[in-house]
């Protein structure tokens, strides 16, 4: 595997002017998938050591400095780390868990991460995802995997103030997701769905 990060899948695409939320790409985000029994004490310790946080609860996200963890499925986590440190962290997980009990794979180049930040972010996401984006249903630290337009993706709220969301999608469809968000973005189209929520 190349040690150089691949080019951004969004090269040449610009953030829209006059948008209700700020769009940006979190490029060179290191990511690795861990599959196994999330209640296994050895796996919990390994995840804690690798990213500085225990496995998050169901459909939750935890951040720890430059690292983090996203709950993807009952037996799967997506762990986040600086791009260059993923290889060492994958080895750490493999070496500190029982052989065959879990699997860790570097997937840093599999997905693109798009950040949507600002007051209109929630409404913008409500337009493109079939999710209940009301603040009472989706708050900081919440994760949902669903569809973004017509492709699979995960929505993570990483911060409540200012409201910041991260969209994880496969990099092959990143330009589609970006352009979809640009269509949903114009400030004139904002109806203030969650302004008084």
């Amino acid at each position, binding site marked *: 595997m190349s040690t150089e990060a691949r080019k951004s899948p969004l090269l040449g695409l610009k953030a829209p002017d006059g948008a209700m939320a700020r769009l940006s790409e979190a490029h060179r985000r290191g990511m690795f998938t861990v599959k196994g029994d999330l209640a296994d004490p050895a796996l919990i310790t390994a995840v804690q050591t690798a990213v500085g946080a225990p496995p998050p609860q*169901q*459909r939750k996200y935890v951040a720890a400095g430059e690292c983090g963890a996203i709950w*993807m*499925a*009952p037996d*799967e986590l997506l762990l986040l780390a600086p791009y260059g440190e993923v290889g060492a962290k994958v080895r750490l997980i493999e070496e500190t868990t029982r052989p065959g009990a879990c699997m860790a794979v570097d997937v840093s180049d599999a997905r693109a991460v798009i950040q949507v930040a600002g007051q209109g972010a929630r409404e913008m996401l409500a337009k493109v995802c*079939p*999710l209940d984006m009301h603040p009472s249903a989706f708050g900081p630290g919440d994760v*949902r*995997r*669903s*569809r973004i337009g017509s492709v*699979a993706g995960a929505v993570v709220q990483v911060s409540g103030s200012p409201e910041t969301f991260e969209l994880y999608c496969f990099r092959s469809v990143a330009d589609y997701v970006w352009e979809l968000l640009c269509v949903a973005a114009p400030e004139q189209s904002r109806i203030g769905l969650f302004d008084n929520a």
Partner: protein
Amino acid sequence: MLMIQCPCCGATAEEADFHCGGEAHIVRLAGDNDADADLGAYLFERANPKGLCFERWRHQYGCGKWFHLARDSRTMEIFGVYDIKAPAPPAEIVAEARRRIAARGLPEHSNN
């Protein structure tokens, strides 16, 4: 549009986030049974009931896991979800389904 609560990840999502995997609890043929008629029935013949039915579903855009779902194919009412490994519908889900179907004044299955 059905709203389905996935028992594996707990999320309530719309039907399009899921994939229906067809009729549930189809019993495999015994290992030494290679009769054409039995194999044909096993592979292709489905009850397709009008009324209470049990299906396998997969949360394909979410956690990716399979589960079982009990619903009424007439009213689209969902009676419950349960583990994919269950060999038969749990008694409490069947009882709940029967109670709610009866409350609507419907038979468990309609003929036409």
